[in-house]
């Protein structure tokens, strides 16, 4: 019995030791990275991976290869096999050549920050990096990854550029800076690994997560007289558009319809004092809700209003967005929400 507990003890201590080893490795790597990057991130574009910042070490496979060569060499020595010596030396030469090829595959790649579309919190921020190859021959199998993450593998053609897209979970609204990216390659033989670090100056705007449940859109103004549900007025004629099923029949522009044959029905549009204003107002939400919750609800409203094609305005403490519709308005509004109380706009 005591035997078993001994084993268990041993297992526990060994797993502890492994954990310690892992944390030690992580810490060493952190120290190395800090030294390697030297310049304080983020770096100005384009980031060129010069000779000085590309590191080269054998991979596990490379170490195995080295061990195998050593064994072959011992065998060749023992049996006085001249061809065995030749084989070892050829393979050793191949190893050295592999270092050069791998190094060449990575060195002088230039990295520019690419696009980075805003995302909602809870989604995945996508950072595009543009990798450029000035050389007249292609680069193969470059892997880019954030620490401990799944790598993205790309090739770059001769004198061409490739976009590598790396994703990071966007947890909180606001600016999400691109984490440090490692770029490595083991091409062509997989024996040698050349790698470098970069911190491109790329930030992703993270909008607040739209609330799953939100109160209905906060219509304001006098809704008693002659207004339609979509917030348009009825007083002044302001234009025509194609008739939609929901438009009131009395707004059909019969004259205009009569003038063209086979044309669709047109609806007269009106604007006026009584046109209802859709104001999404921070203050209209109860004080009891915390900041993030309120922003979530505002985001949901914006999305709903935009989906309905409505014009809307936004009131936030310190921000006032006049009513408008369209993608530009939506992005301005969401941006204001994302950066609320963050100082930068």
């Amino acid at each position, binding site marked *: 019995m005591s035997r078993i507990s001994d084993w268990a003890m041993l297992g526990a201590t060994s797993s502890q030791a492994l954990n310690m080893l892992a944390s030690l490795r992580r810490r060493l790597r952190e120290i190395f990275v800090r030294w390697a990057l030297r310049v304080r991130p983020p770096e100005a574009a384009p980031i060129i991976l010069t000779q000085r910042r590309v590191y080269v070490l054998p991979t596990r496979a490379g170490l195995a290869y080295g061990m195998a060569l050593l064994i072959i060499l011992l065998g060749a020595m023992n049996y006085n096999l001249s061809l065995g010596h030749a084989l070892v030396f050829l393979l050793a030469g191949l190893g050295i050549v592999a270092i050069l090829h791998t190094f060449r595959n990575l060195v002088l790649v230039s990295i*520019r*920050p*690419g*696009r*980075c579309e805003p995302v909602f919190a809870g989604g995945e921020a996508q950072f*595009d990096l*543009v990798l450029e190859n000035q050389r007249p021959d292609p680069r193969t199998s470059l892997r880019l990854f954030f620490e401990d993450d799944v790598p993205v593998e790309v090739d770059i053609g001769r004198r061409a*550029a490739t*976009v590598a897209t790396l994703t990071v979970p966007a947890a909180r609204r606001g600016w999400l800076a691109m984490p440090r990216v490692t770029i490595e390659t083991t091409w062509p033989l997989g024996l040698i690994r050349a790698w470098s670090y970069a911190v491109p100056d*790329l930030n992703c705007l993270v909008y607040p997560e739209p609330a799953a449940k939100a109160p209905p859109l906060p219509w304001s103004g006098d809704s008693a007289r002659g207004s339609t549900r979509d917030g348009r007025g009825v007083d002044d*004629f*302001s*234009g*025509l*558009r*194609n008739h939609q099923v929901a438009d009131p029949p009395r707004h059909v*522009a019969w004259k*205009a319809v009569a*003038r*063209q044959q086979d*044309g669709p029905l*047109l609806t007269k*549009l009106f*604007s006026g004092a009584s*046109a209802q204003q859709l104001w999404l107002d921070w203050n209209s939400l109860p004080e009891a809700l915390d900041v993030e919750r309120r922003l979530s609800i505002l985001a949901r409203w914006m999305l709903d209003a935009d989906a309905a094609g409505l*014009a809307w305005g936004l009131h936030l403490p310190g921000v006032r967005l006049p009513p*408008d519709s*369209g993608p*530009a308005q939506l*992005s*301005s509004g969401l*941006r204001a929400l994302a950066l609320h109380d963050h100082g930068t706009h």
Partner: protein
Amino acid sequence: MRLPELDAILADINRIILGKERPIRLSLACLLARGHLLIEDLPGVGKTTLAHVLARVLGLDFQRIQFTSDMLPADILGVSIFDRDSGSFHFHPGPIFTQVVLADEINRATPKAQSALLEAMEERQVTAEGKTRALPEPFFVIATQNPTHQIGTFPLPESQLDRFLLKIELGYPDPAAERELLAGADRRQMVASLSPRIAPQRLIELQDSVRAVHASPALIDYVQALAAHTRTAPRWQAGLSPRACLALLAVARAWALLDGRDHVLPEDVQAVLPGVIAHRLRPTDDTLRTNVESVAAALIEAVPLP
């Protein structure tokens, strides 16, 4: 190979519209490149005059279409009317059947009317009642739109904006020019007194010679590099399309010709870049959206000459 006639044309226009050399030159370049021009500006800065003068100096017919919200495509393209005498339908061409069209306040019209104009612009022909009628040559549309978003206007969608080769602003004249304008003679009379500098046939020749202006591989590399940058850099929401690149090269060629060169220089590309990207490139940062010049400068300075 400086072309004196072009200099004379520019001089004529500059005599009437004061202090606007650059927009005027751009408009002429746009015309020479067989493109159409979109002017976004406040009323009263001389958009109509510019269109009028251009037509006049080049000896072209001129029509103005004031766009309104109840306008129908037929109001632009023309309509077939039943002729009792002949007992058949007779096509009455719309105002678009002219060489220089000023489409005023285009964003007031419904998308339907707008697209009627834009399709005609693009295809240089009008299809009505199953019959295709070619528009005159040369054919040049100057559309104007009001910058402020008003309720009841229909801003042109981005895909339609691409049909305009250039988008420029005229802006207020500087004080000296404004003073001269106020003190000088009536502009309308001055326009009326202008005589054509060249024949329409010569204009077509000039348009052909724009196409012959040489763009060297190095220059095409440059245009590509600019486009590639807009497509990948985080500063812009969507990059320049291949059509935008063609537009850039076409205007740059015309600009080079106006400068009396048979080849395009990077300077030409840079000079026309703001007008080409103004309605095509949307910065991610909304605060930059209004200032086209600084957006263009940022793009130019980010891309080294190849």
